[in-house]
């Protein structure tokens, strides 16, 4: 017995060397931004192997909470910091934090590729998502029930759509909530009468709806999102406690450099610069 436990403990000590890395940047937060952060980290570490960048998801709230309790240097967030969160930062670190927009994202609505509907107004989208419009016929499509996909209420995208499309109203009870944007995309790609939403980075194998405004149909293109013409776009942020310095600064500088912004485009978001 003793021998077994002994070897277990030795194995454990070998497995978990208690050495700390020099030059560590921790980045935590929004699941929407994890792929982006991860790609940045990969590219950045190729150039400066001495610095380790750790990227973890969990959600915007998780990242901002970690910023407040000191477990991360950079918080990724797909929404602006809330007053309550600023107050906690002030109470603990006597700062209201530093906000750096690092990319832009258009929240797009997805439909199946076989769906003839190509553009909807924001009001129509609201009607669908609160449950007042239940058939594609009401939107000029085929006579079929609308299957609504939504995100979990823990996601930043959920809150964004609720605030900017539903005017704060509740989602319809029949809206299925899926745990990730990819799950939404996958479901919409499979199901021909469905509608879903999410970041445009994920839009593969489905059709992105244009937003109808007046006589114009506005597509979620890089140009329209950059100029703010596409009405449903948002900034993606890095939050820090203080002005960036040291390794964190080098990493952020890289993210905002032309090379870093090229990564943004590659991942499917839109550059801020």
């Amino acid at each position, binding site marked *: 017995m003793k021998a077994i436990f002994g070897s277990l403990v030795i194995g*454990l000590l070998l497995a978990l060397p208690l050495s700390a890395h020099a030059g560590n940047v921790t980045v935590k937060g929004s699941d929407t931004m994890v792929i982006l952060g*991860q790609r940045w980290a990969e590219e950045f570490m190729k150039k400066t192997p001495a610095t380790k960048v750790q*990227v973890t998801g969990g959600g915007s709230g998780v990242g901002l909470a970690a910023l407040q309790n000191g477990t991360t240097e950079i918080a990724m967030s797909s929404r602006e910091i809330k007053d309550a969160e600023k107050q906690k930062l002030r109470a603990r670190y006597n700062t209201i934090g530093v906000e750096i927009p690092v990319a832009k994202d258009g929240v797009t609505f997805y439909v199946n590729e076989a769906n003839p509907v190509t553009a909807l107004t924001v009001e129509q989208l609201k009607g669908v998502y609160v449950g007042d419009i239940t058939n594609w016929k009401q939107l000029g499509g085929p006579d079929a029930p609308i299957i609504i996909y939504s995100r979990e209420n823990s996601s930043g995208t959920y809150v964004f759509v609720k605030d900017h499309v539903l005017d704060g109203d509740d989602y319809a009870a029949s809206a299925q909530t899926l745990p990730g944007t990819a799950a939404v995309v996958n479901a919409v790609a499979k199901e021909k009468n469905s509608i879903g939403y999410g970041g445009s980075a994920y839009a*593969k194998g489905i059709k992105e709806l244009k937003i109808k405004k007046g006589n114009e149909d506005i597509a979620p293109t890089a140009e329209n999102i950059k100029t703010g013409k596409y009405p449903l776009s948002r900034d993606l942020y890095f939050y820090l406690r203080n002005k960036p310095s040291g390794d964190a600064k080098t990493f952020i500088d890289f993210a905002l450099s032309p090379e870093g912004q090229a990564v943004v485009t590659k991942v499917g978001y839109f550059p801020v610069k």
Partner: protein
Amino acid sequence: MTPNTRRAVGLALTSLTGLAAFIIIAMLGIILFNVVENGAGGVTWTFLSKPPEDGMMGGGIFPAIFGTAALTLLMTVAVMPVGVLTAVYLHEYAPPNSLSARFVRVAVVNLAGVPSIVFGLFGLGFFILFVGQGMDRALGHEEMYWAQPGILWASLTLAVLTLPVVIVSTEEALRAVPMDHRTASLALGATQSQTLGRVVLPGALPGILTGAVLAISRGAGEVAPILFTGAAYFLPDLPTHLNSQFMHLGYHTYVMATQSPDVEATRPLLYSTVLVLLLLTFALNLVAVIIRTRTRRKAAGSH
């Protein structure tokens, strides 16, 4: 009933039960076939030895394998002493019909039935927010050090979850050690603890190992308890400290199935990950089954 209808009803019922058994076997077969068919091609050395790349759409799962191994190792170190000693108490030390032994048994049975997600809440509420915060305060950490999700808290949470598994198998193993061995040892003047350490526990060792293996297999596959106690979405580094977060095969499966940027592109990786996870748990289960049948045969032979 005429003999003929009796026979017909009998046959129908027997085949109905046979059908049920067949469906159970078929279900397992279909799952295994599907996973092996789609996943086997992707399990290469590169896949096993590299971290994920290209936003989870490429590379391998090494950090997840390592994280799972480190997690279950810590869990085993935590659960085995407690589980084995509890079983020793129940079978060797507790007076017959003792009320406290009965309470322990009831508690163990109920512990086994607590939903795994509740263990996750417990890990968060007790280990992270209570013990972790207490330790930070006691050790004078300015920033949160222990009061955050990490591999230690996740493994302790899993240790509580697997405690009943270890207790039940150890008790079975103790029962298989013949009474004569104990009385012989005691008659030779050995004390109770000497008898325990030199006769009973060595005799029960295979059964105790079975318990450990079963606990590891259970612990390696559980995802719900580690959701809020330490599993991470993506980490390029392996866990280095007891408070580091870690990647985990089961959680990785969940993340890739629901949150990958391109489901079609990740499908082969996903299947391969599931295959590795299944192989791991099945291999552990198989080891447990083999050890157990051997001990049972030996125990049966010695009587």
